[in-house]
């Protein structure tokens, strides 16, 4: 998600996303599929001639406008509980 959020207007294909996230392609695919199903991400096939390029077309993914907002909020929300918990522990003297 962070990889896509870095530049929400940029399209990224599977291998690029796999390299960015450090996830195996087979692991990243279901996540992308779910995000697409939720409308956070949109995808399209690259419009190239596979014979001319000597490789199959790539599938490009990009955050939607709504997806970018929701992803930012989700990431911020994911970070918040950890900080709040640490502050709470510090208040109780659990963490120096």
């Amino acid at each position, binding site marked *: 998600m962070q990889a896509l959020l870095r530049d929400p207007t940029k399209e990224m*294909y*599977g*291998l690029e996303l*796999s390299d960015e996230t450090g996830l*195996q*392609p*087979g*692991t990243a*695919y*279901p996540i992308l*599929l*779910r995000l697409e*199903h939720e409308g956070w991400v949109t995808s399209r*096939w690259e*419009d190239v001639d*596979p014979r001319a390029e000597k*490789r*199959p*077309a*790539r*599938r490009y993914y990009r955050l939607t406008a709504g997806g970018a907002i929701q992803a930012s909020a989700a990431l911020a929300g994911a970070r918040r509980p950890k900080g709040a918990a640490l502050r709470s522990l510090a208040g109780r003297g659990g963490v120096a």
Partner: protein
Amino acid sequence: MMPGLDSPKEARRKQRVRVVVVIGACAATASAAVDGSRFNASWYWMPWVLGLTAIVVFTGVAMAISGDLPRGRGRGSGSLRASGRDDDGPVAVATYRWRMLVMVSRMMPGAAGRRWLAEAESLLSEIAAARRGAAIRSYLLSAPRLVLMMWAQEVLRRARPGPRRPG
């Protein structure tokens, strides 16, 4: 446009019909053999009939994976082949591994399976050779969950009224 994946729905439907006919024929044959014997206790033998059918199907699938089935039958005769796709997939991917990916893709709903396979093919043809094995394993390991997820989405999509989203 998906590369080389414009397979006609008809070919896929025919293959499904063939699989159903084979399973049905096996079940009917086994059932008839049991009925003709002195053990005519109908339902008592049903687990055996189903078990025998399962063994026949399992053996067929295993043979298809290992490539023991003659070409033009079993795995190689499906819609992907009919569309002109080379059976062996990307040049750099071992044939048996490619065949496993194809078999897995056929467990998924039509369009979703074709897209998954096309994306796998695209990625595997570009990934570094040292990482290819791990990538294929990751595709196969995530497949069972993905198959369930895709079918759940497909069922919901079909149940939902209104215009259908393209797969």
